[in-house]
């Protein structure tokens, strides 16, 4: 299986937002991400699909903060808007992440302090990026909460993560991630921990946000259905390598790699695919 390099395909504004080249990363001596390369343009949603153990989490951790998660970078590069992500100083890192690059995790509430109110935690993030303003910031936060379709916004702000439901926490997590209008939005299984109906809602909401904010997203998931719905391009990851990377439509119609075919075949009710294609 040779590493496949994804070519840009859109004729829209084609600035490469993120460019990952030959990334080899892992833990201690073990190589988990084995020569991954891909590019991400502006206003594009890239899906990385694969089963557990294929290395997608490690890939994400490498892109966020390898030192933090104990990920070793053996080889390769990751360049975001011309900046080398692995060569950032701590201060540059603090400025970049949260503002230009933000993320949502599978279990959003665990990425927040469990017994502090959301209000305090939102404020704290704004203050860290020197974007806190006494008059306007609360309004800004409320507006963001509105964008993720949360009702009862005051109560939610005054609540702590442990007091709210999974779906609500996930929405708050998304709100936090889009608060500062990031250019790159990383989502690691954002809906996997939710009930199916809520999953569908969140997927639609994320898509809507993407259209409105015109940011770029990397969506990591093991759910081909979600990827098909949301992504412009899908990269299939298997055993640390990207085995196929193609525009969603083309991938769904004519999967080349045998593993991709297996993945697609594993999705039940093929009829749903046809419906998705029609609605696009």
């Amino acid at each position, binding site marked *: 299986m040779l590493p496949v390099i994804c070519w840009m395909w859109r004729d829209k504004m084609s600035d490469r937002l993120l460019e990952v080249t030959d990334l080899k990363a892992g833990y201690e001596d073990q190589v988990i991400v084995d020569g991954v390369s891909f590019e991400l343009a502006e206003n594009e949603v890239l899906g990385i699909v694969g089963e557990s153990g294929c290395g997608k989490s490690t890939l994400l951790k490498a892109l*966020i*903060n390898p030192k*933090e*998660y104990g990920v070793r970078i053996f080889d390769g590069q990751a360049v975001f808007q011309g900046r080398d992500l692995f060569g950032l100083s701590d201060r540059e*890192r*603090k*400025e*970049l*992440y*949260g*503002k230009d690059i*933000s*993320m949502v*995790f599978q*279990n959003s509430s*665990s*990425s*927040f*302090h*469990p*017994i*502090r109110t959301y209000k*305090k935690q939102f404020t*704290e*993030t704004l*203050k*860290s*990026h020197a974007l806190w303003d006494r008059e306007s910031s609360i309004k800004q936060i409320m507006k963001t909460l509105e964008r993720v379709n949360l009702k009862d916004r005051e109560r939610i702000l005054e609540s*702590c993560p*442990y007091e709210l439901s999974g779906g609500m926490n996930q929405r708050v997590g998304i709100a*936090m991630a889009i608060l500062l209008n990031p250019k790159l939005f990383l989502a690691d299984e954002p809906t996997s921990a939710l009930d199916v109906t809520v999953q569908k809602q969140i997927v639609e909401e994320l898509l809507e946000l993407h259209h409105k904010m015109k940011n770029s997203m990397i969506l990591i998931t093991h759910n081909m259905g979600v990827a098909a719905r949301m992504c412009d391009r899908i990269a299939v990851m298997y055993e640390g390598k990207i085995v196929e990377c193609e525009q969603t439509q083309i991938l769904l119609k004519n999967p080349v790699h045998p593993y991709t075919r297996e993945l697609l075949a594993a999705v039940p009710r093929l009829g749903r695919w046809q419906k998705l294609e029609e609605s696009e």
Partner: protein
Amino acid sequence: MFVKQLLLQVRKDKMKKYILKRVLQLIPILLGLSILTFLLLYISPGDPAQKKLVSMEAMITDELLEQMREEMGLNRPFWQQYADWFVGILHGDFGTCYRDGLPVADKLFRALKNTAILGGTSMLLAMLLAIPFGIYSAVHQNKIIDYLIRFISFVGNSIPSFLLAVLLMYFFCVKLKLFPVVAKKNGLKEMVLPAIALAVPVISRFTRQVRAEVLDQMGRDYVHGLRSRGVKERYILYRNVLRSVLVSIVTLAGLSLGSMMAGSVVIETIFGWQGIGKLVMDSITARDYPVVQGFVLIFGTIYVMVNLITDLSYHFLDPRIKKEN
């Protein structure tokens, strides 16, 4: 900020009921404590009359014994003796010393004040040193300063406080003549060494615990989340991690009070500080048991109250901790 939250909660009726329930639960324990204390007098052979005579250094004859027994009411039924004693306690009458017949309560509470001053200073000193040390040690994990702090706290935990006190006294009082050897009054200068000696074991335990807790919290998901949002390190440490560590700091403080109470007996004896610890040791030597009883009762009650307060505080510090059945 905290106090506001606290007051808001207390106003709620549910909270009041819970506090009341916990306070009521105290009563059987305090009662049991008083029974235990009362029984202490009987655990060694010989009856209290005999013991009193010994303490008074009087000759023990049968006549005297009978006289004393009548006086002390030892011929009455057991439960009546206890009831009388207990009622006396509630009125603040802790009985009279065997030796000199003076009321025990006066001596105890005067001495308690001195011990409280010493203990309070010591506890403050301990907190002011241990918490920063623990945090610093955790943040600079595995660097030289971390090993140094860990080593010192480990050693501090392994030195008995009496040994430390004797050594401190030797170096600073005798050799360097910085402090008086025998405390003539309970002044500031006299308090320095005893406070240090009392504080060292507490500092050692505290530092290790704080370090362990901070390290534990730093590995949690929410810290990764905070970093991924670019939150300042300062905020992560002081506003988030410390908030979580608070519960265990409060627990430790409560427990340390207990060890300080015991430590005060030793330290005050060595340095001659006129606190309740020294009073108790003197009384034990003189077989003046009512004082010992009073000591157990007072310290026990204080300890129980403090534990209750720390327990109640958990509810505010971490609302997720469910009340025990």
